[in-house]
């Protein structure tokens, strides 16, 4: 425990903060993470004393303000996803996945259909998908994604069977393309008695344009810290509300807000005997839900549609500019969704320069690197997501910076390999970090 004065603590943490990149400081095109502007107005609203001061177990008469907000958010999310009911209990996307898969399991169990042991996930899926399936006691079975970025439909058909509890999909996928045969996939899985889980991490791409509920998904989560612009906080918090169609709605996790006339109350056990129950001590990341609600209200109907439209516009523009600049696209025949994948396999082969090297060198240009090495199936890749809140100028600056780095790959590869050069730290040694574990100060 340190023993310092208030000034020392303030100065230390103020100065430390300046060793971070952030949305408020830099372009941050981290694919799959939707690093868009986090409105300060939403932060202020959630910081109102009536909200920050409310105890989670306060009596109902002292809870109507919060419950009204929670209920309103549930309704907004229903409308935006096309689902019949929403619980905002899960505290991030992964917990939403857990909840959704637990709901699928509860559904099968309730029908006495207890032999389904597999959840299918594409090999391009985010790591949380198989991890969540396993956490629920399932085996995660991978199906490949084809060269066009869509799931290999034949392989999928072959994988689906009576052992299939369900499938987890993002759409648009983590390859940055819209899964065109989604309706066929839904039919195949449903026909086999399985259910469809929608990983909402990429909802930003289609907000207001298409809804997972209309694509045949039975249950989903929404990452409010992505699509609904709540700040990522250097790792969290987030919130991962789950939505379900009529079939799965009875299994939604608690707590949920209920409206009765002008009053609000909590869903009681008697209201939801089939719920998978609570996943947190109280009501999930309530303060994040408030921020998301404020953001949703500021967007409104048209604003939501524009989010998807301009996220898509920015991604396609940036993809096109990079294509013209000679960058190799992973799926050159496809539209970008709100993000897209590029690959540096050529640079790796010719110059021994990795995607990570290029990422580090981009940092020197004051740009946060895109997501690297994800999806895993594309070698030496970047997943680039500019989001709708960035200007054309910022995108052009990214093209210029990456072009310059790619020039350097040819003219001065050492400079790229040893990047970054302009940051508080030079390249950090991950291997040493894991080998000589130094996890607390002082101890060695």
């Amino acid at each position, binding site marked *: 425990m340190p023993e310092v004065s208030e000034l020392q603590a303030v100065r230390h943490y103020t100065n430390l903060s300046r060793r971070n990149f952030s949305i408020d400081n830099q372009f941050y095109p981290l694919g799959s993470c939707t690093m868009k502007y986090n409105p300060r107005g939403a932060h202020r609203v959630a910081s109102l004393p009536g909200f920050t001061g*409310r105890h989670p177990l306060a009596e109902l008469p002292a809870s109507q303000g919060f419950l009204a907000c929670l209920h309103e958010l549930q309704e907004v999310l229903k409308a935006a996803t096309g689902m019949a009911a929403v619980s905002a209990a899960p505290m991030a996307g992964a917990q939403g996945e857990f909840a959704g898969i637990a709901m699928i399991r509860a559904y099968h169990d309730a029908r006495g259909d207890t032999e389904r042991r597999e959840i299918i996930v594409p090999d391009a899926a*985010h790591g949380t998908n198989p991890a969540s399936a396993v956490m629920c006691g399932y085996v995660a079975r991978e199906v490949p994604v084809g060269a066009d970025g869509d799931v290999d439909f034949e392989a999928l058909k072959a994988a689906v069977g009576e052992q299939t509890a369900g499938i987890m999909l993002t759409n648009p996928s983590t390859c940055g393309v819209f899964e065109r045969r989604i309706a066929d996939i839904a039919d195949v899985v449903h026909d086999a008695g399985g259910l469809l889980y929608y990983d909402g991490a990429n909802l930003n791409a289609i907000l207001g344009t298409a809804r997972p509920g209309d694509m045949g998904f039975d249950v989903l989560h929404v990452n409010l810290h992505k699509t609904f612009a709540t700040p990522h906080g250097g790792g969290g918090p987030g919130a991962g509300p789950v939505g379900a169609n009529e079939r799965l709605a009875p299994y939604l996790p608690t707590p949920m807000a209920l409206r009765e006339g002008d009053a609000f109350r909590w869903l009681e056990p008697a209201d939801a005997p089939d719920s998978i129950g609570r996943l947190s001590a109280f009501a999930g990341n309530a303060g994040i839900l408030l921020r998301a609600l404020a953001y949703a209200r500021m967007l409104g109907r048209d604003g939501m549609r524009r989010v998807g439209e301009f996220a898509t516009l920015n991604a396609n523009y940036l993809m096109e500019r990079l294509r013209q600049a000679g960058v190799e696209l992973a799926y050159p025949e496809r539209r970008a969704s709100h993000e897209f994948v590029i690959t540096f396999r050529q640079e790796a082969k010719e110059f021994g320069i990795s995607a990570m090297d290029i990422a580090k060198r981009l940092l020197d240009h004051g740009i946060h690197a895109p997501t690297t090495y994800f999806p895993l199936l594309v070698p030496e890749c970047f997943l680039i997501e500019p989001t709708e809140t960035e200007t054309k100028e910022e995108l052009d600056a990214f093209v210029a910076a990456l072009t310059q780095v790619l020039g350097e790959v040819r003219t001065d590869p050492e400079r790229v390999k040893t990047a970054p050069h302009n940051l508080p730290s030079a390249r950090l040694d991950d291997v040493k970090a894991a080998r000589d574990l130094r996890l607390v100060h002082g101890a060695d």
Partner: protein
Amino acid sequence: MPFIPHTDQDVATMLDAIGARSIDDLFDEIPGALRCGPLDVPLGEREMEVTAALTQRARRDEPGPCFLGAGAYDHHIPAAVWDICSRGEYMTAYTPYQAEASQGTLQLIHEFQTMMAALTGMEVSNASVYDGASALAEAVLMAVRANRRTRRRGAASAGRETATTRVVVAGAVHPHYVATARNIVQGQGIRLDATGFDANGTVDLARFEALLAEPPAAVIVQQPNCLGLLEPVDEVVAAAHAAGALVIAAANPISLALLAPPGDWHDRGADIVCGDGQPLGIPLSSGGPYFGYICTRREFVRQLPGRIVGLTEDSGGQPGYALTLQAREQHIRRGKATSNICTNQGLLVTAATVYMSLLGAAGLNAVASRCHAQTRELVTELASIDGVERRFAGPFFHECVLDIGRDAQDVAQQTATAGITGGLPLGRWYPDLANCLLVCATEKRSDADIAAYRDVLRRILAHPEQPATASAPERTG
């Protein structure tokens, strides 16, 4: 257009570069049948209007003095904490995957790990999971993996319906924590067996012994327990270790400034310490965002879920920080990861770190001592009312169960109407304790607050019982 910077000219130039005629063209891979019409949500409002509307709602819930704890505590938060956390550099950064561009967050987490290890008497800490309840669930999964005996058993089984692994819940552990843990671990065939508490409000030792007969993978004990009382943790640890079970301690971090750290309990201490970091500078906020912490000994670090930051060096030999042991995590290990957690509660860890730095050991100790003193004062004052008395006699930290001689739910509602958050009606958790209130006073409760509550409660209890309100067996909020 809110939050979208494009001019019409920009859009035209960009579409031109893409070779599309309209933004709509860019969605041409989405089958027409899947396109939706306008969403059924209201039209957008400006920040001003949203602020006004939500301010009105917030006002409705504005609390008077809060004597409710039960897992979330109304401590004073120095203004510096959130002034710092709200800096864009902390608030709007992502997970520090690019270490060189994230030294601020990384060093801060490393300091956090150091402080949490010191506070719990453990050797390592992670960088948070969701909340205290989910931390307990993760600790259970971790203990099952870490316990060599259960690990062997787990390896033998596969797929969904594995042999059942048992974990014993010793004493009064927060029911929401137990429910959460149960919901999260049951898919993996892990069962929680609870001892319940005896007439002292602490672990029923006879039942505990019985439940150890067939050795469980782990034992969970909460200190102070969810009734505010001190459990006989040394005995619990001794018996658990003797039975080959690992010990998971759930602890309120503020209490650790006064109580023996779990790392010092009995022989080698608890094996895993977890809990909720909310008391460390995080507002009540209807239950979140808070953060769950998990600390353990070095030997179990590879079973620890969540991110971990290590000190390393850069290519120039200068010290620097990076995420480490990432092979435990889902983004590398996928289905075989220690947990599915990805997004954690980073900003709350930032708050807790700044909070602990501002207070230091002496400051934390002063807060804990003052909480204890004010709770004693509270209990004395409330017990001065006819018909109000302590339900359990043992020592408490900053919460205490009072028997008020009639339905506590009803009284709590009346208290709320009088502008005081008066405590938890324990009937919500334990039907036997329907006449009991779990009350709490933090350092923030002044003597005047306490006197005001005493007067309100006296007045309410002086009036005949109201007709029973609709029963509310478990509040889920």
